[in-house]
């Protein structure tokens, strides 16, 4: 799966799962609150029934002439009677509670008695809340949310894949097209370059050396595009050979390769290369990294602009005095097929390749740019 596909799928899943989770959470919360109230109401109903029994017993007790009035005790709840001024009369509590004061984790029920049997105007009943059914409800809701989460995640994944299928198909077709094109381009480009080299070697056609140079530049550009496209296509399948590479020598070599292009644009080339800078890297990866940065700096440079290439043991830097990049485009410029400037030709794959190489070797890429002033790209070898 391509990076862009993964990103789209992830975004879709995040939105889908987020909204589903939010909706389920609200529904579950409403259901939980209503069920909890229902469970507490059931427990309160039991207290109400007990209060009726005690009230009847108080009535009988009020009519008793006995010197010993036995207070009616409930088996399931504590109770107490209060006079009209809410003063405690009698009850089963070890510490008489204040009427109207709510206790935590306790279910209370107050009933007004009239007439005031034994002077009792209020009857208070309370018992600890039975949390067993509430905990069972919570457990069931958590299980339900988990199962629903798993179900909707699977469903979302399949839906997401279904939605990105057309995009995937387009990318696939584009890749196939690039693959076919590059394959077909290889032979003619190689033929042109070999023949130009032969003409230069044997010194024929000196009269037309300018034209020949232009053909050489065009062919090299084509060749580089071909290399880039091949690199992208084979990126996951080609076996890398990590060697102790002399980067100083390689960059000098690549600068010679690009010299014709730089000359054509009359660039002021400044090269500052520290000798014996060596890196553990695949040669093709290194070439793709260097070529893309240098060719971009040439391509987007102004005529007679500055091209500054610097290599040290810590970093490789390419600076140009070209068109520059908008600040808002700087964050997305690394994406494949993304082009901040359409003034020059290209596919928008150069910086994607640079980014891939940088990421696979753990390098750090710094990019600074000012519109109409130029761009500076620095690849730091170590973090």
């Amino acid at each position, binding site marked *: 799966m391509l990076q862009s596909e993964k990103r789209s799928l992830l975004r879709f899943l995040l939105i889908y799962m987020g909204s589903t989770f939010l909706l389920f959470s609200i529904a579950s919360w409403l259901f939980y609150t209503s069920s909890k109230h229902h469970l507490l109401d059931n427990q309160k109903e039991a207290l109400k029934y007990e209060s009726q029994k005690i009230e009847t017993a108080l009535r009988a007790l*009020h*009519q008793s*002439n*006995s*010197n*010993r*009035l*036995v*207070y009616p*005790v409930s088996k399931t709840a504590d109770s107490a009677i209060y*006079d*009209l*001024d809410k*003063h405690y*009369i*009698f009850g*089963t509590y070890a510490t008489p509670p204040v009427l109207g004061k709510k206790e935590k984790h306790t279910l209370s029920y107050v009933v007004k008695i009239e*007439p*005031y*049997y*034994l*002077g*009792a*105007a209020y009857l208070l009943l309370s018992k600890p809340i039975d949390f067993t059914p509430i905990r069972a409800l919570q457990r069931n809701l958590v299980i339900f949310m988990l199962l629903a989460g798993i179900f909707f995640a699977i469903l979302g994944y399949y839906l997401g894949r279904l939605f990105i299928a057309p995009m995937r198909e387009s990318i696939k077709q584009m890749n196939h097209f690039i693959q076919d094109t590059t394959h077909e381009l290889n032979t003619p480009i190689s033929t042109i370059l070999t023949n130009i080299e032969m003409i230069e070697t044997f010194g024929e056609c000196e009269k037309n050396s300018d034209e020949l140079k232009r053909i050489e530049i065009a062919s090299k550009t084509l060749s580089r595009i071909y290399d880039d496209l091949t690199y992208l296509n084979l990126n996951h399948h080609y076996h890398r050979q990590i060697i102790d590479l002399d980067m100083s020598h390689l960059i000098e070599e690549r600068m010679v390769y690009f010299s014709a292009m730089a000359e054509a644009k009359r660039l002021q080339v400044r090269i500052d290369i520290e000798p014996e800078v060596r890196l553990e890297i695949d040669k093709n990866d290194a070439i793709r990294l260097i070529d893309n940065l240098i060719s971009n700096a040439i391509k987007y440079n102004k005529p007679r602009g500055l091209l500054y290439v610097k290599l040290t043991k810590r970093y490789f830097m390419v600076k140009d005095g070209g068109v520059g990049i908008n600040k808002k485009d700087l964050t997305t410029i690394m994406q494949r097929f993304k082009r901040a400037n359409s003034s020059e030709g290209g596919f928008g794959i150069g910086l994607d390749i640079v980014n891939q190489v940088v990421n696979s070797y753990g390098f750090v890429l710094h990019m600074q740019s000012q519109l109409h002033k130029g761009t500076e790209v620095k690849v730091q070898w170590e973090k």
Partner: protein
Amino acid sequence: MGKIIFLLSLSIVYSFAQNEIQEASMDLQSACLQCHQEEQIPSSLVYRRYLMRYSTPERISEAMFRYLKNPSKTASIMPSQFFLKFPMKKKTEMDDMELRQYIHRYIEKFDVKKKLVLP
């Protein structure tokens, strides 16, 4: 020796207190309850009627005071049929303070709080 003096003084204080209680009880008996007993009106029943309507000792005390100061069928706790059989009480001649003291003793005597027990 010290212990003997302490025990002696304690028993004297106790006997004084007992006398006080007895005297107070005797006072209430002669001033209030005696007539009720002669007329065969159970005082505890009267108190329960007060309790059932007024709930608190303070409210009962006020209601009793009002009735004793100015006895009438409307101020009485007893139903109107009660006065077909029993005569209306005469207005009390006690001063307010003395009357309030007797009412207090009356309420204390018949208070149900003392009688309530847990099984």
